[in-house]
């Protein structure tokens, strides 16, 4: 009974973090491509996007492997 809300809170928190992450990614990419002068901002944007996608995939993989229910059971017992 008690576990479900905690799991929900955890998932919502993670969802919020990922949403915030993508908002900042969008703002950064927008600034680099819209206001940058010369080739340097474009290079930065390309490297940034590559890193963003790779790190996000790693995070999703790590998130999937977290079993919050078993962790909670361990700490409550």
């Amino acid at each position: 009974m008690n576990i479900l809300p905690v799991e929900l809170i955890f998932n919502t928190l993670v969802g919020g973090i990922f949403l915030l992450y993508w908002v900042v990614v969008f703002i950064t990419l927008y600034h680099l491509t819209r206001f940058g002068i010369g080739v340097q901002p474009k290079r930065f944007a390309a490297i940034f996007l590559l890193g963003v996608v790779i790190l996000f995939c790693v995070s999703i993989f790590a998130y999937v492997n977290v079993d919050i229910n078993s962790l909670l059971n361990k700490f409550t017992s």
Partner: protein
Amino acid sequence: MIKKILSIFKDSSDSFEGQEEGEQVLLLLRRHIFVVLLALSGFALVSLVPVLIATIFSSYIVRSGLLSLFLFASSIWYLFLWLAIFHFLTMYTLNTVTITDRRIIDKDQHGFFNQKVSELHVNRIQDVTVHTKGILETLLHFGKIIVQTAASEKQFIFHQIPDPEKVKDVIMQAIASKKPEMRSI
């Protein structure tokens, strides 16, 4: 086709918003690369935090079954570290001094939504001063450029500019090339 797409990472006319017709960009300046390397070394130290925690508390993390949670928390740490690094690099790359044959444009980006643009017409420049101070600035050839305008109270200061002597020469040449135009007026 692919070559054409990739060319945006190699060739640029350094064009900018608000560029007048026939206006030529003589120099596009950013702060010295030393500033970036210094900040990146700081970020490199911050990136070691999860590694340090893992080294110190490894046995506890594994014993209490927190490994998956720790790896997830570390991945979030690196996600936001990546954002922080590129926030810094974005500010660095958007802080520019553009010297054209007609004017000097100083763009100061202090945050994503905080930008200051100052413009100075070449024919209003009175003198240009180069200030190199300290061992690092002398060895790495960067320094401060002070541009004095005709209006005595206004001064433009560009910090940590690489090769300031060359920049000064380019500004002086731009002024000299504008002088015949000024006389004809």
